[in-house]
């Protein structure tokens, strides 16, 4: 199985995530100015956004590491991909948080989170197929 679709998807995911992060951050700023957004609620939202960014960076770097070939000895090449899949679960949960449990969910939030979830779903399917090809 060629991993070209997966590779393309990773690139698209990376670029889209940058857009997603900036958009969500900007919308949180907008919400804090326009609505009543006390710090008790603002804090967790921002924290989760940054955690999600870190997870995403980790996940994508693991995935690219798989694509470029393993460094060092012949380690199990599905290991980085598997780890990436696990981290994807975390990202999915966070995305669902931003879709449903955020303090203010705007329509724009719904749209970009839905797209992100769709991307994650597609990616997960392709990763599972790629892992299955090794095993």
């Amino acid at each position, binding site marked *: 199985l060629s991993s070209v679709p997966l590779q393309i998807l990773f690139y698209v995911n990376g670029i889209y995530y940058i857009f997603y992060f900036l958009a969500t951050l900007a919308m949180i700023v907008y919400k804090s100015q326009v609505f009543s957004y006390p710090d008790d609620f603002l804090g967790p939202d921002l924290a989760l956004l940054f955690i999600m960014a870190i997870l995403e960076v980790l996940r994508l770097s693991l995935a690219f590491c798989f694509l470029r070939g393993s460094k060092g000895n012949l380690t199990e090449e599905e290991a980085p991909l598997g780890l990436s899949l696990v981290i994807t679960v975390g990202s999915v949960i966070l995305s669902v948080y931003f879709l449903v*449990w955020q303090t203010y969910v705007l329509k724009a939030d719904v749209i970009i989170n839905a797209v992100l979830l769709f991307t994650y779903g597609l990616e997960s399917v392709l990763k599972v197929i790629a892992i299955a090809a090794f095993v």
Partner: protein
Amino acid sequence: VAKLCVCDLLVAQCDVNCCCDPDCSAADFSLFTTCSVPIVTGDNRLCSQKAAIYSLDVEANPPERIFKLIDQVNPSVFCIHATNYKQAVSFSSPEMPTSENFDRLLKQFGSASFSAEPDSWNMNTDAQNPSDANETYRYEYGVPIQTVDAFLRLPSPVVSSWCSDANPAGFLVNQATKCIRSVSVEKCGNVQAVSMLFYINSSILAVPKSSQMVNITVQSIAVQSLNGMRTLLNGSDVLRLPMILDELCINIVLGVSYHITYTDAGEIIEAAASFALGAINKEALSIQQRFEISFTQVNTKPVPLSGNPGYVVGLPIRAGFRPQGYPFPVEILFAPINTNKYSQLTILQSTSNQDCLAAQGARTPILFGYNMISGCKLRITAAMKCQPLTQTLLDLLKGQSFPEYVASFGNSQAQDVLDWVPVTHFHTSEQRIYNTFQSSCQIPVSLEIEVKWTKYGSLVNPQARIVNVTAAITTATLKQLPSGRERTIPITSSVVFTDISSPAEPGYKAWPTINAKLPFDFFFPFV
């Protein structure tokens, strides 16, 4: 939303033109011209909310009201799809206090202000009442001086001239009062207020509400006899109480003078009282008592102030000398050896006989704000020599020790060097044309002191501050007289006060600036 009606003001009555009023019947609706409230919606920032639309159908006959309940959609992409924060889109009804939550509600809302944020945001409620127990107290101006039982009393006349013992002495308030006390020989030992013990009995507290006490010591006792003659007693340790002696009541307090020494931290460290005792005979029914209190800062010599801080018109100008070897560190004070013992600037005082040489050095202090001129006539005979005459006239005009420095404020302390203004001296000659015979004698004939002062401080309460003092001596030529003749020349000295204050300039407020900042705790968990 269907039940909300903003224009329904009258209860159980139909409001005019209010289409949502449930009290109106169809017949009422037909009389309306328009609907004052066409639409009632929820928060329109939500993506979809219910809206009730009221309108009048004027085409129909009779006009009838149309009521529609629809879902209004906010087309913006930033509409609120959902919110997990209950207070965002609706007003919360406040909690009813019950016995369980009363303490919590009191803690949250019981102070003068409370924030609308949830409970955890109460950083400042604990900092509102610092414990007063450890606060250091000190006396401030005007605060009554506390003693062990009450206050330090300075009896003074209230309403009438009779003494009232309820007047407390205020800190740093120099007072002098006199009042009449009724006393007779029979009640000699009974009236407390004429006995020395009454005034030195209770000790003064060093700082308010403390336990540190300062005893009042007896500084001096002067005994006044019946005919008014006062003698100072040598030993002042003995307490002299009123007693009857030969049909007189002696050792009655006629006057008390308190001298309190304080530090600049507002603490009283010493208190002394000087008494004037007297005697009364059988006919006397009342005596007049005088009381005064004065405050001196520790380690300073008490100098009467001429204003605090600016000079007060009518009070003498303070002056002094710089000690030898200045500049040295501040421990060396300005020596108070001045023109007169009160360290004031003085001017020649005109006497009735107007003879300069017989004037005996009478001088009067220069009072701030009062221009003065004085003078005398000098009789010159042929026998007078130039040099001693010049020296005598200089002494006459300037006085024995003319000061070098003048205090720029009325309360300038001797330690503050920058508060003292040097006196500049000028010499001018009366004659403009210099003749070749310079050896002719020049004698000083007039001294003009010009004091330039300015208003200093706030516009509401300007203080007078001396900026510049110049002393100009004008000399004239003394022509040699043929023997036997004599001449009289006038010698004058004057003081002029000039106000050189610059007019106040208006100040304008700064332009308002746009304050565009993120809230300071925007990055709360990370900062």
